[in-house]
């Protein structure tokens, strides 16, 4: 930055958002709505002249600048923005524009679109040479603000934080003890490595990715019937666990089928292109739903990789970002070769890939061999053996039927199959019935990429462009989301909008440094996660000082760690871990935990009942829950899991009575509490106080304070008196769920302890990451 004023004003942070919010709707990227051909969203436009030759902005001279003159014009007929636009500028905003012009009207490229250049590491005075580069950036900014890092969090908090962040599961007490008891410098790094190597890491990372790509087990429209797709979910888990480089992860999902000799995994990955909502509704018109799915893919793909709101350009050029409607349909054209139907019928979602288990493969081979043997014998029958023919024919028919049945029962997954592309046109105003728009071929957004040569571009070209070194967005978008996962808020809060209306990053150099590091590492996700969680910034305490609450209430400077309620799936997982009920099987078909009866009453075609799984599938991690788009499991919904109809980069965190009711009354949590109570009685010692301490430590990784134990002892003795006086009540409480009822303890005693463990499972601390 050349001058002091330029440091003070960052064009894209301070000036451009004002222009974007107040001027771009008429003087922005949308050619159709642009008034008088004046553009304020480009450097050329801003530093150019009006149609009548007046200079828009004269650097250093606000009064000579038409822009300044018009925003300060006293008369309504000259004043900008016009009153009817209903977006008046405040005095403070006018002052920002004035000072910006006065200081030389420096123009800067939008922060997310400029080329990635590795910034020099700052040298804050408080950083030593071995410090994590992340800390240099964070600390340099803190020092400018006269702040410092918060103290390192205590060992128990760190152990829980790492475990929850890297696996979505709370640590076992023995892990916490080992971590807290080991004073050596390497314990932290070793614990991180252990967690990164656990299979639960991939499950945890998958939860976020599945929100982005809108993974679900049902089609989403109307009858919302099941779709076969869980192998794709397992592919995502495995990709994170195997640390598949992100560029390859991208290629495989968008275009695995177009890779040379694609593997099964690469073909499963292409389920990504099939995750749009689908319908079987009678009277639905194929053309309309093909248009819907095309638009759906543009919204999702541009959202997942580019954090671009390209979907806004479906009916008109984008109002704020330089995407045209033509860009929208050209982007959609990349997917015009995806074999699909506008309207499906009878539950099929062809094309699907059958994925026989080894046993099923062997059985199929057997049946085929037997069938060809029968065929061979039939063909070789001579006249004398004609009597054998009916028996052989019956046998052949039986074998064919058995094989057919077996094939129908094979696990399947939706995949992408490339067919000759259907014609794509710009749909005027998004109207699928209007075929008057220009025909388009696949093309990258014009302002981000030069037009290609003669060959028709493919999904693989799109994937290659997304992960090309010079793509300015993909790496920035991804590292910003990683930052959000480990700090609670992105460097740019706008996880899903890196355009003009998105929030500029608080630490732009750090964002760029991380993005370059990601690309240079070979798109190594675990490398980036290590960098983040091994930083000093990550290890800070999350309890804010009074000064920080006043100075930085939203924690945008990262002078402390973030803290938040766990994601819906991880709340369930925590209860299952604490009660030691969690079944740690990875992948497979989605499962059905207990769900309130009648919740699917309004589903139809066909009518369906939710049948809760019996046995081990009842105790699987939350991410394996059958994801019904129109009726998501109510306990997931209560904790803000998205329906996955659209790309979701950021879940809200609500705090509602529905959440309280789930933890209090959902049989899943009641059963967990009861099984936990049985464990307390079996393993927690012999007297009430030590049992309470044991239970507390099991759930919260720490010893209870005296006041805390006292409250639970009080609850225990009251509950004990009540349940001892009312045996049937105790019996009905301990009968909740499928887990065996311990016969080592009286039902009254289990029920009394269940009150205690219910209280513990309901604590804010139990469902929070600090």
């Amino acid at each position, binding site marked *: 930055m050349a001058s002091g004023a330029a440091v003070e004003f960052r064009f894209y942070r301070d000036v451009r958002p004002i222009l974007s919010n107040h001027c771009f709707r008429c003087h922005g990227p949308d050619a159709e709505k642009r008034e008088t051909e004046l553009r304020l969203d480009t450097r050329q436009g801003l530093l150019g002249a009006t149609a009548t030759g007046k200079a828009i902005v004269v650097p250093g001279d606000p009064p000579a600048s038409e822009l300044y003159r018009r925003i300060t014009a006293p008369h309504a007929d000259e004043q900008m923005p016009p009153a009817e636009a*209903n977006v008046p500028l405040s005095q403070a905003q006018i002052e920002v524009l004035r000072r910006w012009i006065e200081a030389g009207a420096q123009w800067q490229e939008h922060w997310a679109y400029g080329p990635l250049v590795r910034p020099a590491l700052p040298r804050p005075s408080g950083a030593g040479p071995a410090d994590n580069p992340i800390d240099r950036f964070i600390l340099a900014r803190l020092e400018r603000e006269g702040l410092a890092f918060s103290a390192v969090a205590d060992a128990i908090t760190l152990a829980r934080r790492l475990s929850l962040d890297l696996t979505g599961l709370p640590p076992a007490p023995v892990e916490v003890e080992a971590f807290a008891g080991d004073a050596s410098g390497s314990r932290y790094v070793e614990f991180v490595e252990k967690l990164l190597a656990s299979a639960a890491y991939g499950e945890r990372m998958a939860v976020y990715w599945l929100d982005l790509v809108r993974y679900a087990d049902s089609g989403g429209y109307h009858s919302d019937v099941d779709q076969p797709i869980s192998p794709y979910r397992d592919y995502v888990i495995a990709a994170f666990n195997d640390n598949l480089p992100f560029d390859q992860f991208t290629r495989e999902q968008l275009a695995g089928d177009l890779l040379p000799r694609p593997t099964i995994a690469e073909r499963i990955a292409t389920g990504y292109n099939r995750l749009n909502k689908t319908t079987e509704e009678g009277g639905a018109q194929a053309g309309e739903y093909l248009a819907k799915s095309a638009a759906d893919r543009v919204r999702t793909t541009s959202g997942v990789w580019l954090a671009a709101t390209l979907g806004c350009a479906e009916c008109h050029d984008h109002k704020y970002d330089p995407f045209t409607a033509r860009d929208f349909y050209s982007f959609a054209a990349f997917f015009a070769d995806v074999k699909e139907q506008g309207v499906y019928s009878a539950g099929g979602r062809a094309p699907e890939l059958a994925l026989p288990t080894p046993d099923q493969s062997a059985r199929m081979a057997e049946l085929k061999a037997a069938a060809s043997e029968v065929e061979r014998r039939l063909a070789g029958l001579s006249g004398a053996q004609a009597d054998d023919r009916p028996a052989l024919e019956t046998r052949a028919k039986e074998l064919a039927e058995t094989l057919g049945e077996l094939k129908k029962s094979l696990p399947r997954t939706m995949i992408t199959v490339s067919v000759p592309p259907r014609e794509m046109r710009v749909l005027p105003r998004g109207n699928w019935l209007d075929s008057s728009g220009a025909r388009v071929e696949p093309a990258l957004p014009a302002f981000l990429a030069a037009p290609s040569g003669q060959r028709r571009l493919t999904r693989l070209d799109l994937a290659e462009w997304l992960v090309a070194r010079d793509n300015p967005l993909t790496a920035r978008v991804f590292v910003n989301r990683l930052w959000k996962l480990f700090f609670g808020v992105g460097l740019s809060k706008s996880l899903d909008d890196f355009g003009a209306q998105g929030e500029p990053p608080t630490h732009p150099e750090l964002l760029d440094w991380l993005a370059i590091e990601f690309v240079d590492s070979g798109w190594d996700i675990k490398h980036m996660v290590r960098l983040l969680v091994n930083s000093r910034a990550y290890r800070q305490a999350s309890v804010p000082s009074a000064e920080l609450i006043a100075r930085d209430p939203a924690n945008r400077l990262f002078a402390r760690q973030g803290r938040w309620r766990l994601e819906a799936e991880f709340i369930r997982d925590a209860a299952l871990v604490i009660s030691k009920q969690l079944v740690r099987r990875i992948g497979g078909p989605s499962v059905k935990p207990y769900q309130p009866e009648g919740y699917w009453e309004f589903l139809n075609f066909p009518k369906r009942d939710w049948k809760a799984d019996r046995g081990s599938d009842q105790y699987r991690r939350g991410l394996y829950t059958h994801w019904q788009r129109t009726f998501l499991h109510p306990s997931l919904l209560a904790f803000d899991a998205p329906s996955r109809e*659209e790309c979701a980069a950021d879940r809200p965190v609500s705090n509602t009575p529905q959440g309280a009711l789930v933890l209090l009354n959902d049989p899943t949590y009641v059963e967990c509490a009861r099984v936990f109570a049985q464990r307390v009685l079996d393993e927690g010692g012999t007297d009430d106080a030590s049992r309470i301490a044991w239970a507390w430590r099991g759930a919260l990784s720490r010893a209870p304070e005296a006041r805390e134990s006292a409250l639970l002892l009080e609850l225990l003795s009251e509950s004990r008196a*009540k349940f001892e006086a009312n045996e049937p009540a105790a019996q009905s409480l301990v009968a*909740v769920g499928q887990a065996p009822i311990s016969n080592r303890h009286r039902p009254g005693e289990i029920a009394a302890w269940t009150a205690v463990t219910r209280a513990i499972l309901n*604590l804010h601390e139990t469902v929070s990451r600090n």
Partner: protein
Amino acid sequence: MLPREDNFWSPDPLRVTRRAFLGRTSLGLGALGLAGLTSAGFASDDSVGPNQRAKQSGTEHPAGLPHFAPRAKRVIFLCMAGGPSHFETFDPKPKLSEMHGQPMPASFTAGQPIAQLQGQQLVCQAPLFGFRRWGQSGQQISEVLRHIGGIADELCIVRSMHTDQINHDPAHTVMNTGTSISGRPSMGSWILYGLGSAAANLPGFVVLTSTSKDGRNPQPIAARQWHSGFLPSRHQGVAFQSHGDPVHYLGSPPGVTPSEQGRLVSTVSRLDAIRNELLANPEVETRIAQYELAFRMQTSVPELMNVSDEPAHVLDAYGVQGADGSFAYNCLLARRLAESGVRFIQLYHRDWDHHNDLVKFMHVCARDCDRPTAALVNDLKQRGMLDETLIVWGGEFGRTPMAQSNKGGVGRDHHMRAFSMFLAGGGIRGGITYGGTDELGYHAVENPVHVHDLHATMLHLLGLDHTRLVFRYQGRAFRLTDVAGQVVRPILA
């Protein structure tokens, strides 16, 4: 150990818990007087800026709202899901009788979206019921809806509705959110966001659904229809179930009495409060209030659902046979919800998709919906509440003037270019018919009213300017009415 109150376990768990909280928690929890669903969440995203004080008092909504004096305090939206035929309800078309059996003129249908009649011969179908003039206003309403006919002077019938989608699921999504793209907030959520809740012990947006036992195979209704989209999730509608717990997880676990549950909740809150001495996290205070509200709901919702305290003449007027989940029962609950301060009450009745046997199924729908609808309007009027309650009645679209006769008796297909709705109550001019369709009822031609216009008008009656009720999401100020919508002023009182 905290001191013990002798009367801690009184028979009224509601009062007890509040006392317990106030008397016994270590925090001076100012939020306990909370009168609504008011969690903080990430309210910093509210574009207009959250009103912290209002948030604590339960009337939370963006600053400066309502924009002007409201005519209505609440909405009861009676959604006739499936799409009632306008030809047999509110839009008489004698010309269609004349042309019965003749080909539908291509001038109407060329280039138009067609649903199940795609590729079939399009033939005019005469209206299957006669119309009568009702009340002093002489409004024309089908003879099959005689109870609704009886309240004709209260109704503003809009014959010129039109929408953008021709299939049920997306058309419902348009009716609720103004667009067919998923993920946008429903109108009830927008209204709750704009005005806050006035209900102390109930959610501010409640959905009730009914299905006849002998109606046509009903259409699914997705939970998306009452979702809060990108608005804070506390504005989400809560669907009351007709079986089991009316609200998910409302019942305490088996063997646990209300007082024991209250004791548990109070222990959880006290433990949370102790920990929060260290953490100083405002979310914990909100959470404590939400636990208290959840516990109050465990009592208040079953009380609301239990209509045994209603006098016989009221039950008779609605035709309520008991807590059976019928439309009649739901209409009575709607009045009780309105009395409790619930802001947006939405009833779905799922039986109006009359592709075939329209006469038979229209009789079924009339039997189940006609009397309760009229009873609700009359009941509200008697209680002096009609003036402050906006009633909206109608489906997600209308039906074709063309016959559909591929199975059973004749019916009509989906139609999006014209349909009828009615409004009544708060701020609406009763006894008028607004707008009109062409002579065959195909297009809305006179004063067309798009769904966006309906939304703009509803918000207007609630004191909200639809162009200024905005929420910033993905870099853009979103509205219920997107970039369209005009208040339909001629129908305002």
